[in-house]
Protein backbone atom coordinates (compact mmCIF):
# COMPACT_ATOMS: atom_id res chain seq x y z
CA UNK A 1 0.00 0.00 0.00
CA UNK A 2 2.82 2.37 0.93
CA UNK A 3 4.74 1.48 -2.19
CA UNK A 4 1.66 2.04 -4.35
CA UNK A 5 0.96 5.41 -2.73
CA UNK A 6 4.53 6.59 -3.07
CA UNK A 7 4.54 5.38 -6.70
CA UNK A 8 1.43 7.44 -7.40
CA UNK A 9 2.84 10.52 -5.68
CA UNK A 10 6.38 10.26 -7.04
CA UNK A 11 5.17 10.42 -10.64
CA UNK A 12 2.12 12.64 -10.33
CA UNK A 13 3.23 14.78 -13.26
CA UNK A 14 2.66 11.87 -15.64
CA UNK A 15 -0.84 11.22 -14.30
CA UNK A 16 -1.81 14.86 -14.82
CA UNK A 17 -0.47 14.74 -18.36
CA UNK A 18 -2.34 11.53 -19.17
CA UNK A 19 -5.58 12.99 -17.80
CA UNK A 20 -5.23 16.12 -19.92
CA UNK A 21 -4.42 14.07 -23.02
CA UNK A 22 -7.56 12.04 -22.47
CA UNK A 23 -9.72 15.14 -21.98
CA UNK A 24 -8.32 16.88 -25.04
CA UNK A 25 -8.64 13.88 -27.31
CA UNK A 26 -12.20 13.18 -26.15
CA UNK A 27 -13.20 16.79 -26.84
CA UNK A 28 -11.69 16.69 -30.29
CA UNK A 29 -13.52 13.52 -31.30
CA UNK A 30 -16.82 13.62 -29.45
CA UNK A 31 -17.92 17.22 -29.28
CA UNK A 32 -20.32 18.64 -31.82
CA UNK A 33 -19.40 22.29 -31.82
CA UNK A 34 -16.37 23.20 -33.93
CA UNK A 35 -14.98 25.69 -31.41
CA UNK A 36 -15.13 23.08 -28.66
CA UNK A 37 -13.15 20.75 -30.89
CA UNK A 38 -10.56 23.46 -31.40
CA UNK A 39 -10.34 23.99 -27.65
CA UNK A 40 -9.85 20.24 -27.22
CA UNK A 41 -7.02 20.36 -29.76
CA UNK A 42 -5.38 23.10 -27.72
CA UNK A 43 -5.73 21.12 -24.47
CA UNK A 44 -4.19 18.06 -26.14
CA UNK A 45 -1.20 20.00 -27.40
CA UNK A 46 -0.73 21.74 -24.04
CA UNK A 47 -0.69 18.38 -22.28
CA UNK A 48 2.21 17.23 -24.47
CA UNK A 49 4.03 20.48 -23.71
CA UNK A 50 3.58 19.86 -19.98
CA UNK A 51 4.95 16.35 -20.42
CA UNK A 52 8.18 17.56 -21.97
CA UNK A 53 8.68 20.29 -19.37
CA UNK A 54 8.17 17.89 -16.51
CA UNK A 55 10.90 15.64 -17.97
CA UNK A 56 13.41 18.40 -17.43
CA UNK A 57 12.77 19.14 -13.79
CA UNK A 58 15.42 18.37 -11.16
CA UNK A 59 15.01 18.41 -7.41
CA UNK A 60 16.88 21.23 -5.72
CA UNK A 61 17.98 22.89 -8.97
CA UNK A 62 17.40 26.45 -10.05
CA UNK A 63 16.49 28.15 -13.33
CA UNK A 64 18.97 27.68 -16.21
CA UNK A 65 20.64 31.09 -16.09
CA UNK A 66 24.26 31.29 -14.94
CA UNK A 67 25.55 34.04 -12.74
CA UNK A 68 27.80 35.76 -15.23
CA UNK A 69 31.51 35.53 -15.80
CA UNK A 70 32.46 36.22 -12.21
CA UNK A 71 30.11 33.77 -10.60
CA UNK A 72 30.89 30.33 -9.23
CA UNK A 73 31.72 27.55 -11.72
CA UNK A 74 28.79 25.82 -13.32
CA UNK A 75 27.78 22.33 -12.23
CA UNK A 76 25.14 20.49 -14.16
CA UNK A 77 23.20 19.30 -11.13
CA UNK A 78 22.45 22.86 -9.99
CA UNK A 79 20.40 23.83 -13.01
CA UNK A 80 17.30 22.30 -14.49
CA UNK A 81 17.52 20.78 -17.92
CA UNK A 82 17.17 23.60 -20.48
CA UNK A 83 16.64 21.43 -23.57
CA UNK A 84 12.93 20.56 -23.06
CA UNK A 85 12.19 24.24 -22.51
CA UNK A 86 13.76 25.10 -25.84
CA UNK A 87 11.84 22.35 -27.61
CA UNK A 88 8.59 23.44 -26.07
CA UNK A 89 9.06 27.08 -27.07
CA UNK A 90 8.85 25.72 -30.57
CA UNK A 91 5.86 23.54 -29.75
CA UNK A 92 3.95 26.43 -28.18
CA UNK A 93 4.48 28.54 -31.28
CA UNK A 94 3.36 25.66 -33.47
CA UNK A 95 0.20 25.19 -31.41
CA UNK A 96 -0.62 28.91 -31.64
CA UNK A 97 -0.10 28.82 -35.39
CA UNK A 98 -2.37 25.78 -35.75
CA UNK A 99 -4.96 27.49 -33.57
CA UNK A 100 -4.88 30.54 -35.85
CA UNK A 101 -5.36 28.50 -39.02
CA UNK A 102 -8.12 26.39 -37.43
CA UNK A 103 -9.99 29.50 -36.34
CA UNK A 104 -9.65 31.03 -39.80
CA UNK A 105 -11.17 27.88 -41.32
CA UNK A 106 -13.94 27.86 -38.70
CA UNK A 107 -14.76 31.47 -39.59
CA UNK A 108 -14.97 30.47 -43.23
CA UNK A 109 -17.32 27.62 -42.35
CA UNK A 110 -19.48 29.99 -40.30
CA UNK A 111 -19.58 32.53 -43.10
CA UNK A 112 -20.81 29.83 -45.43
CA UNK A 113 -23.26 27.80 -43.32
CA UNK A 114 -24.29 30.21 -40.60
CA UNK A 115 -23.71 27.72 -37.78
CA UNK A 116 -20.85 26.00 -35.99
CA UNK A 117 -22.64 22.81 -34.95
CA UNK A 118 -21.51 19.83 -36.97
CA UNK A 119 -24.88 18.09 -37.24
CA UNK A 120 -26.56 21.28 -38.51
CA UNK A 121 -23.84 21.68 -41.09
CA UNK A 122 -24.18 18.08 -42.22
CA UNK A 123 -27.94 18.38 -42.58
CA UNK A 124 -27.44 21.52 -44.66
CA UNK A 125 -24.95 19.68 -46.84
CA UNK A 126 -27.33 16.77 -47.32
CA UNK A 127 -30.06 19.11 -48.48
CA UNK A 128 -27.88 20.60 -51.20
Amino acid at each position, binding site marked *: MDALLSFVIA*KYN*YWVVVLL*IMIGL*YAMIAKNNLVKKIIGMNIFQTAIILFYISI*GAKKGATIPITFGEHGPPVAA*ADFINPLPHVLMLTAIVVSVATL*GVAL*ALALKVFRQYGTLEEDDIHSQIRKE
Partner: protein
Amino acid sequence: MKSIALTVVLILGCLLVYVAQEFPGFGDPGAPANVHVSPFYIENAMRDTAVPNMVTAILADYRGFDTLFETSVIFTAGLACFFLLRVIRRRAPESRLYRHIPTDLTIRIEKGGRLPASSAEFQRIDSVWVPYDLIIHMTGRLIVPFIQLFALYVIAHGHYSPGGGFQGGVILGAAVILFALCNNLRMTVRRFSERTNALLCSLGVIIYAGTGVMCMLLGSNFLDYGALAGLLGVDRIMARSHGIMMVEIGVAIAVNAVMVWIYYNLSSVGRQDEGL
Protein backbone atom coordinates in the same frame (compact mmCIF):
# COMPACT_ATOMS: atom_id res chain seq x y z
CA MET B 1 -19.66 8.78 -31.81
CA LYS B 2 -19.30 9.62 -28.15
CA SER B 3 -19.01 5.99 -27.12
CA ILE B 4 -16.33 5.30 -29.74
CA ALA B 5 -14.46 8.37 -28.54
CA LEU B 6 -14.74 7.31 -24.93
CA THR B 7 -13.45 3.80 -25.65
CA VAL B 8 -10.52 5.01 -27.72
CA VAL B 9 -9.59 7.60 -25.11
CA LEU B 10 -9.82 5.14 -22.23
CA ILE B 11 -7.70 2.56 -24.02
CA LEU B 12 -5.07 5.16 -24.81
CA GLY B 13 -5.15 6.44 -21.22
CA CYS B 14 -4.70 2.97 -19.77
CA LEU B 15 -1.81 2.28 -22.13
CA LEU B 16 -0.07 5.51 -21.16
CA VAL B 17 -0.57 4.91 -17.45
CA TYR B 18 0.67 1.33 -17.72
CA VAL B 19 3.87 2.35 -19.44
CA ALA B 20 4.50 5.15 -16.94
CA GLN B 21 5.57 2.67 -14.29
CA GLU B 22 9.00 2.50 -15.87
CA PHE B 23 9.47 6.24 -16.14
CA PRO B 24 11.95 8.04 -13.92
CA GLY B 25 10.32 9.89 -11.04
CA PHE B 26 9.48 13.55 -11.20
CA GLY B 27 12.61 15.64 -10.64
CA ASP B 28 15.11 12.79 -10.69
CA PRO B 29 18.57 14.23 -11.45
CA GLY B 30 19.81 10.84 -12.62
CA ALA B 31 17.23 10.37 -15.36
CA PRO B 32 18.69 9.64 -18.82
CA ALA B 33 17.28 12.90 -20.16
CA ASN B 34 19.20 14.89 -17.55
CA VAL B 35 22.45 13.01 -17.89
CA HIS B 36 23.28 12.65 -21.55
CA VAL B 37 23.21 15.79 -23.67
CA SER B 38 22.05 18.59 -21.40
CA PRO B 39 25.09 18.75 -19.06
CA PHE B 40 27.11 19.79 -22.12
CA TYR B 41 24.74 22.70 -22.71
CA ILE B 42 24.67 23.72 -19.05
CA GLU B 43 28.43 23.67 -18.60
CA ASN B 44 29.45 25.17 -21.90
CA ALA B 45 26.77 27.68 -22.87
CA MET B 46 28.41 30.58 -21.05
CA ARG B 47 31.85 29.61 -22.26
CA ASP B 48 30.93 29.15 -25.91
CA THR B 49 28.49 31.99 -26.44
CA ALA B 50 28.92 34.52 -23.59
CA VAL B 51 25.17 34.35 -22.96
CA PRO B 52 24.17 33.56 -19.36
CA ASN B 53 20.66 32.40 -20.25
CA MET B 54 21.19 28.79 -21.37
CA VAL B 55 17.77 28.52 -22.94
CA THR B 56 18.47 31.46 -25.27
CA ALA B 57 21.89 30.03 -26.10
CA ILE B 58 20.42 26.66 -27.08
CA LEU B 59 17.42 28.22 -28.83
CA ALA B 60 19.35 30.60 -31.02
CA ASP B 61 22.74 28.99 -31.37
CA TYR B 62 23.01 25.25 -30.78
CA ARG B 63 19.55 24.53 -32.16
CA GLY B 64 19.13 27.77 -34.06
CA PHE B 65 17.95 25.98 -37.17
CA ASP B 66 14.83 24.76 -35.39
CA THR B 67 14.08 28.31 -34.32
CA LEU B 68 14.38 29.56 -37.90
CA PHE B 69 11.66 27.16 -38.91
CA GLU B 70 9.60 27.98 -35.87
CA THR B 71 9.63 31.61 -36.95
CA SER B 72 8.61 30.61 -40.43
CA VAL B 73 5.77 28.53 -38.92
CA ILE B 74 4.38 31.64 -37.30
CA PHE B 75 4.87 33.53 -40.57
CA THR B 76 2.96 30.80 -42.36
CA ALA B 77 0.10 31.12 -39.88
CA GLY B 78 -0.21 34.85 -40.59
CA LEU B 79 -0.01 34.27 -44.32
CA ALA B 80 -2.56 31.43 -44.14
CA CYS B 81 -5.08 33.55 -42.22
CA PHE B 82 -4.66 36.27 -44.82
CA PHE B 83 -4.95 33.81 -47.69
CA LEU B 84 -8.06 32.12 -46.33
CA LEU B 85 -10.05 35.05 -45.02
CA ARG B 86 -9.11 38.27 -46.70
CA VAL B 87 -11.79 39.77 -48.89
CA ILE B 88 -10.05 42.36 -50.99
CA ARG B 89 -12.55 43.50 -53.55
CA ARG B 90 -15.75 44.27 -51.83
CA ARG B 91 -19.04 45.13 -53.34
CA ALA B 92 -20.93 48.29 -52.39
CA PRO B 93 -20.92 48.70 -48.62
CA GLU B 94 -23.84 47.41 -46.61
CA SER B 95 -25.60 49.65 -44.15
CA ARG B 96 -23.33 51.82 -42.07
CA LEU B 97 -23.86 53.72 -38.86
CA TYR B 98 -22.81 57.31 -38.37
CA ARG B 99 -22.98 59.55 -35.34
CA HIS B 100 -23.59 63.25 -35.73
CA ILE B 101 -21.24 64.76 -33.18
CA PRO B 102 -22.93 68.13 -32.40
CA THR B 103 -26.38 66.61 -31.78
CA ASP B 104 -25.29 63.09 -30.73
CA LEU B 105 -27.81 61.54 -33.10
CA THR B 106 -27.04 58.19 -34.69
CA ILE B 107 -28.07 57.76 -38.29
CA ARG B 108 -28.01 54.63 -40.38
CA ILE B 109 -27.43 54.74 -44.10
CA GLU B 110 -28.68 51.64 -45.90
CA LYS B 111 -27.14 49.88 -48.81
CA GLY B 112 -27.08 52.01 -51.90
CA GLY B 113 -27.45 55.31 -50.12
CA ARG B 114 -24.99 58.14 -50.30
CA LEU B 115 -22.45 58.37 -47.52
CA PRO B 116 -21.45 61.69 -45.99
CA ALA B 117 -18.13 62.95 -47.22
CA SER B 118 -15.55 62.86 -44.44
CA SER B 119 -16.45 65.87 -42.44
CA ALA B 120 -15.76 66.82 -38.89
CA GLU B 121 -19.40 66.51 -37.95
CA PHE B 122 -20.00 62.87 -38.81
CA GLN B 123 -18.09 60.06 -37.20
CA ARG B 124 -18.33 56.47 -38.42
CA ILE B 125 -19.08 53.97 -35.69
CA ASP B 126 -19.14 50.18 -35.62
CA SER B 127 -22.41 48.25 -35.64
CA VAL B 128 -21.60 46.95 -32.19
CA TRP B 129 -20.88 50.29 -30.61
CA VAL B 130 -20.04 50.83 -26.97
CA PRO B 131 -21.13 54.34 -26.01
CA TYR B 132 -19.20 55.08 -22.84
CA ASP B 133 -15.69 54.58 -24.09
CA LEU B 134 -13.85 57.56 -22.62
CA ILE B 135 -12.31 55.64 -19.72
CA ILE B 136 -11.19 52.78 -21.92
CA HIS B 137 -9.80 55.19 -24.48
CA MET B 138 -7.74 57.15 -21.95
CA THR B 139 -6.54 54.13 -20.03
CA GLY B 140 -5.39 52.45 -23.23
CA ARG B 141 -3.60 55.59 -24.25
CA LEU B 142 -1.70 55.63 -20.96
CA ILE B 143 -0.80 51.94 -20.85
CA VAL B 144 0.21 51.14 -24.44
CA PRO B 145 3.57 52.99 -24.41
CA PHE B 146 4.63 51.24 -21.22
CA ILE B 147 3.70 47.86 -22.61
CA GLN B 148 5.81 48.53 -25.66
CA LEU B 149 8.72 49.67 -23.52
CA PHE B 150 8.48 46.52 -21.45
CA ALA B 151 8.43 44.47 -24.63
CA LEU B 152 11.66 46.09 -25.81
CA TYR B 153 13.17 45.35 -22.40
CA VAL B 154 12.16 41.69 -22.66
CA ILE B 155 13.70 41.40 -26.12
CA ALA B 156 16.95 43.09 -25.14
CA HIS B 157 17.34 41.13 -21.91
CA GLY B 158 16.78 37.75 -23.47
CA HIS B 159 20.45 37.08 -22.85
CA TYR B 160 20.31 37.71 -19.12
CA SER B 161 16.86 36.78 -17.90
CA PRO B 162 13.91 34.76 -19.14
CA GLY B 163 12.76 36.46 -22.31
CA GLY B 164 13.88 36.82 -25.85
CA GLY B 165 12.48 37.44 -29.28
CA PHE B 166 9.26 35.44 -29.13
CA GLN B 167 8.13 36.71 -25.78
CA GLY B 168 8.97 40.34 -26.57
CA GLY B 169 7.37 40.13 -29.99
CA VAL B 170 4.13 38.80 -28.57
CA ILE B 171 4.03 41.61 -25.99
CA LEU B 172 4.57 44.18 -28.75
CA GLY B 173 1.77 42.64 -30.72
CA ALA B 174 -0.43 42.66 -27.63
CA ALA B 175 0.15 46.39 -27.26
CA VAL B 176 -1.17 47.05 -30.75
CA ILE B 177 -4.13 44.72 -30.18
CA LEU B 178 -4.93 46.58 -26.97
CA PHE B 179 -4.91 49.82 -28.93
CA ALA B 180 -7.26 48.29 -31.48
CA LEU B 181 -9.61 47.11 -28.76
CA CYS B 182 -9.71 50.48 -27.02
CA ASN B 183 -10.31 52.44 -30.17
CA ASN B 184 -11.56 50.83 -33.30
CA LEU B 185 -10.02 48.66 -35.99
CA ARG B 186 -10.09 51.26 -38.74
CA MET B 187 -7.98 53.67 -36.70
CA THR B 188 -5.43 50.97 -36.02
CA VAL B 189 -5.28 49.91 -39.66
CA ARG B 190 -4.76 53.53 -40.65
CA ARG B 191 -1.78 53.80 -38.34
CA PHE B 192 -0.26 50.39 -38.84
CA SER B 193 -1.46 49.24 -42.22
CA GLU B 194 -1.81 45.67 -43.33
CA ARG B 195 0.83 46.09 -45.99
CA THR B 196 3.36 47.30 -43.40
CA ASN B 197 2.55 44.30 -41.26
CA ALA B 198 2.95 41.83 -44.09
CA LEU B 199 6.26 43.33 -45.14
CA LEU B 200 7.54 43.40 -41.56
CA CYS B 201 6.64 39.72 -41.16
CA SER B 202 8.73 38.80 -44.15
CA LEU B 203 11.50 41.17 -43.06
CA GLY B 204 11.81 39.56 -39.63
CA VAL B 205 12.29 36.05 -40.97
CA ILE B 206 14.56 37.32 -43.75
CA ILE B 207 16.79 38.91 -41.09
CA TYR B 208 17.07 35.53 -39.40
CA ALA B 209 17.73 33.53 -42.55
CA GLY B 210 19.93 36.30 -43.90
CA THR B 211 22.19 36.13 -40.86
CA GLY B 212 22.62 32.45 -41.53
CA VAL B 213 23.33 32.98 -45.21
CA MET B 214 25.89 35.63 -44.32
CA CYS B 215 27.67 33.12 -42.11
CA MET B 216 27.64 30.73 -45.05
CA LEU B 217 29.07 33.33 -47.40
CA LEU B 218 31.85 34.10 -44.92
CA GLY B 219 33.01 30.51 -45.03
CA SER B 220 31.39 28.57 -42.19
CA ASN B 221 28.30 26.40 -42.12
CA PHE B 222 24.82 27.84 -42.11
CA LEU B 223 24.04 29.73 -38.87
CA ASP B 224 27.58 29.37 -37.53
CA TYR B 225 27.80 32.84 -35.96
CA GLY B 226 31.51 32.56 -35.27
CA ALA B 227 32.10 33.46 -38.90
CA LEU B 228 30.73 36.92 -38.23
CA ALA B 229 33.73 37.70 -36.00
CA GLY B 230 35.65 39.44 -38.72
CA LEU B 231 32.65 41.45 -39.86
CA LEU B 232 31.69 42.67 -36.41
CA GLY B 233 35.23 43.20 -35.18
CA VAL B 234 35.01 41.03 -32.05
CA ASP B 235 36.32 37.59 -31.12
CA ARG B 236 34.38 34.44 -32.02
CA ILE B 237 32.61 34.08 -28.70
CA MET B 238 31.25 37.62 -28.63
CA ALA B 239 30.32 37.21 -32.28
CA ARG B 240 28.06 34.34 -31.23
CA SER B 241 26.46 36.54 -28.63
CA HIS B 242 25.86 39.29 -31.18
CA GLY B 243 24.61 36.80 -33.73
CA ILE B 244 22.05 35.56 -31.20
CA MET B 245 20.99 39.16 -30.61
CA MET B 246 20.50 39.77 -34.32
CA VAL B 247 18.31 36.75 -34.82
CA GLU B 248 16.29 37.56 -31.72
CA ILE B 249 15.54 40.99 -33.16
CA GLY B 250 14.44 39.38 -36.41
CA VAL B 251 12.19 37.01 -34.51
CA ALA B 252 10.66 39.84 -32.47
CA ILE B 253 9.82 41.87 -35.56
CA ALA B 254 8.26 38.89 -37.28
CA VAL B 255 6.20 37.74 -34.28
CA ASN B 256 4.94 41.25 -33.58
CA ALA B 257 3.79 41.78 -37.14
CA VAL B 258 2.18 38.33 -37.37
CA MET B 259 0.19 38.76 -34.16
CA VAL B 260 -1.25 42.04 -35.41
CA TRP B 261 -1.90 40.65 -38.90
CA ILE B 262 -3.74 37.61 -37.54
CA TYR B 263 -5.80 39.88 -35.30
CA TYR B 264 -6.74 42.10 -38.24
CA ASN B 265 -7.93 39.16 -40.30
CA LEU B 266 -9.65 37.13 -37.62
CA SER B 267 -11.50 39.92 -35.82
CA SER B 268 -12.99 41.40 -38.93
CA VAL B 269 -13.42 38.09 -40.86
CA GLY B 270 -11.22 39.37 -43.63
CA ARG B 271 -12.96 42.65 -44.32
CA GLN B 272 -10.80 44.86 -42.05
CA ASP B 273 -13.74 47.14 -41.86
CA GLU B 274 -15.21 46.71 -38.41
CA GLY B 275 -13.38 44.83 -35.71
CA LEU B 276 -14.19 43.90 -32.14
